[in-house]
């Protein structure tokens, strides 16, 4: 586990390795002798607390891996160029744990004490909402990473803030569509979601979509256990006594696993199938505990759902080789964020015919671009080109006993235009309005 901790000495070795390989690459390719100044990037994610395991660590691993590989120019096309446009990436990691005031203070320090060129990160929607206005105030180029709330770009247009990863709306649109297709003529369903913004929003979105697509379906039980409650006996009894045809949940990691253990032990998922909008992140640890037939989403076409590509093969292999564990969607999310930034940076650089692009030039290049990622292709379509959308996929879980590894069957893909609101529409309004303008095929 130790290498997960960004101890100073580790960061040192990483940078040394990077330099060495970088120089090697340069001499072999016989590129220009003098080094362009490195690009300083501040990476913020959960390094401590309950959110570290599910998000922070895969996030941080992907960052470590990609920064090192990019600096060494080892990433396959179209990202073969060293660092960002030939300039090495100099990474600085910060913990996202703490109150909003801590997070905002740390953001200011990154921008003005450490003078980073870009800030990439943030898992918690609350933190994304908190730093965005500060980023605008400080004119600090910022790429939000995992947080899902649509509010960031729907409350007002942003100039300095981007989010490559699609927001949470499409997760529930796609899973709802999938559930309706899978469980024929659904009339009753229940939901259990964590009692905080993420869980509340997920459940609201899911219900709105259900209302649009299956007006006769009614909600039986809707439960909101405390975040990180750990003990779900009462909730499981309630659900056991429910006559729902399936149970929606946006639980993740710790809470999801605790819920699955306790529910499975009491035969709940065997009786009523679960629809887990972000279940993918826990499958590798849960293995056979998750009963076959559970509906799984991954907040985008990641891991099981990723499109085949050289980039994906490389990323998956490099990650597993290095960390001896499977990359889960937060790792893919981070890769998308960084590749988006790299694309924009290098586009801007090319546009001005070489030389380091200014923040404004990067922003101009970033807006509206589309680019390949290990999982799929992302299009910066929403929020005046600041919010990415992509297709997504949902599947049904099946544990391969022979290989003793999780696998996904009956995968259904949904095009970006089908599960995301049109550019100028607020996502809740879109759901309430019956998802007008959705282009499904």
């Amino acid at each position: 586990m130790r290498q997960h901790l960004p101890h100073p000495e580790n960061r040192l070795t990483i940078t040394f390795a990077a330099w060495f390989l970088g120089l090697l690459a340069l001499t072999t390719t016989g590129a220009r002798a003098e080094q362009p100044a490195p690009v300083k990037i501040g990476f913020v994610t959960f390094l401590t607390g309950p959110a570290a395991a599910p998000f922070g660590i895969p996030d941080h691993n992907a960052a470590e891996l990609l920064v090192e590989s990019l600096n060494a120019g080892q990433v396959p096309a179209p990202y073969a160029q060293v660092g960002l446009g030939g300039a090495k990436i100099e990474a600085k990691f910060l913990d996202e744990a703490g109150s909003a005031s801590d997070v905002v203070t740390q953001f200011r320090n990154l921008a003005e004490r450490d003078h980073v060129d870009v800030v990439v990160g943030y898992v918690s929607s609350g933190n994304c909402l908190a730093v965005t206005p500060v980023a605008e105030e400080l004119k600090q180029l910022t790429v939000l990473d995992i947080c899902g709330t649509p509010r960031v770009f729907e409350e007002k247009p942003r100039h300095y803030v981007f989010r490559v990863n699609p927001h949470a709306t499409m997760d529930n649109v796609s899973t709802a569509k999938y559930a309706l297709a899978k469980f024929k003529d659904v009339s009753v369903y229940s939901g259990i979601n964590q009692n905080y913004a993420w869980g509340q929003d997920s459940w609201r979105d899911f219900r709105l979509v259900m209302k649009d697509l299956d007006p006769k379906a009614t909600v039986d039980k809707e439960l909101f256990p405390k975040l990180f409650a750990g003990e779900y006996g009462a909730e499981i009894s309630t659900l056991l006594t429910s006559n729902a045809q399936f149970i929606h949940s946006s639980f993740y990691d710790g809470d999801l696993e605790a819920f699955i253990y306790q529910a499975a032990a009491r035969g709940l998922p065997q009786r009523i199938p679960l629809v887990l909008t972000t279940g993918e992140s826990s499958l590798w640890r849960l293995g056979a505990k998750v009963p076959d037939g559970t509906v799984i989403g991954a907040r985008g076409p990641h891991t099981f759902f990723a499109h085949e590509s050289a980039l994906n093969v490389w990323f998956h292999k490099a990650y597993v080789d290095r960390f001896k564990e499977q990359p889960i969607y937060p790792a893919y999310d981070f890769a998308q964020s960084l590749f988006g930034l790299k694309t924009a940076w290098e586009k801007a650089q090319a546009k001005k015919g070489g030389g380091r692009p200014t923040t404004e030039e990067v922003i101009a290049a970033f807006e509206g671009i589309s680019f390949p990622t290990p999982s799929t292709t992302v299009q910066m379509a929403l929020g005046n080109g600041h919010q990415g959308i992509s297709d997504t996929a949902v599947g049904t879980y099946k544990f391969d006993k022979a290989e003793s590894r999780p696998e996904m069957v009956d995968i259904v893909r949904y095009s970006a235009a089908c599960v995301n609101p049109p550019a100028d529409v607020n996502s809740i309004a879109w759901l309430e309005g019956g998802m007008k303008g959705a282009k499904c095929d």
Partner: protein
Amino acid sequence: MLTAFAILTDGLVYAAYLFLIAIGLTLIFGVMRILNVTHGSFYAFGAYGSAIAVGIYFDRGFPAAGGFLLMVLVAMVIGLVLGLILERGLLRLFYGKDEVIVVLVTYAAFLILEDVIKLIWGPNSYALYQPLALAGTIDVGSLVLSGYDIGLIVFASLLAIGASFALKRTRWGHLLTVVIFDREIAAALGINVTAVYTITFVIGAMLGALGGAVMAPKIAVTLGIGVEVIVLAFAVVAIGGMGSIGGALLGALIVGECRAAAVHLVPQIELFVIYAVMALVLIFRPQGLFTRIAPRKI
């Protein structure tokens, strides 16, 4: 009818959990007047320890019964080590200081231990799934109860009985009761209060770790599980009456049943039902339900 039964059993299961995390806290408070925040760390260490040790044990395919014993054993060892280190190495330095200062000391220790956990076991989460499967289930109508949960209830009850027996019937228990009643008198009677403190703290630590150890099979053992436990245990202890084992039991039952009822009937209030109960109890019986205020001597 079924719902009523469900509420009852769920309440009991939750109460068992609450009692397990509260008993150590209330014991330490009763004897040492320390509101011990590191109790959360004991819980976490117990959970990690049992998740790993017992996990390995079951992976080796050893007999099930031994696994459950191992849980308790792990808790004992962790409690012993952590308890001794903290009491002898740290708290000892702060005896006689303001109660709140000592709370802050344990808070500081808790912060440190949070990261120590991370340094020892890393940031990834662990799972101990075998016991739940081994314990099987009991069907009551459409309601399926986990054998492990029933086990928890029994275990907690035994612990409660054992504790009250130990306090009322054993010599050691009498010593404790004296110390709880009045430290000065205890010292005057020639009781070695320092020793009593050390032993009490270690036992409290063991109980805290035990709570974590037996909960480990039900939860994903991950960073920060201690934080949740602290306030929950505080609430239970405050409701029951600081420093009273019976109080902890009563508090656990009340909170457990209230929460279960809330989840089944009005899920909206589940989030703060515990604190509402706590506030009400404190308002009408500030000393908690089980303890009597010592009459003011003038």
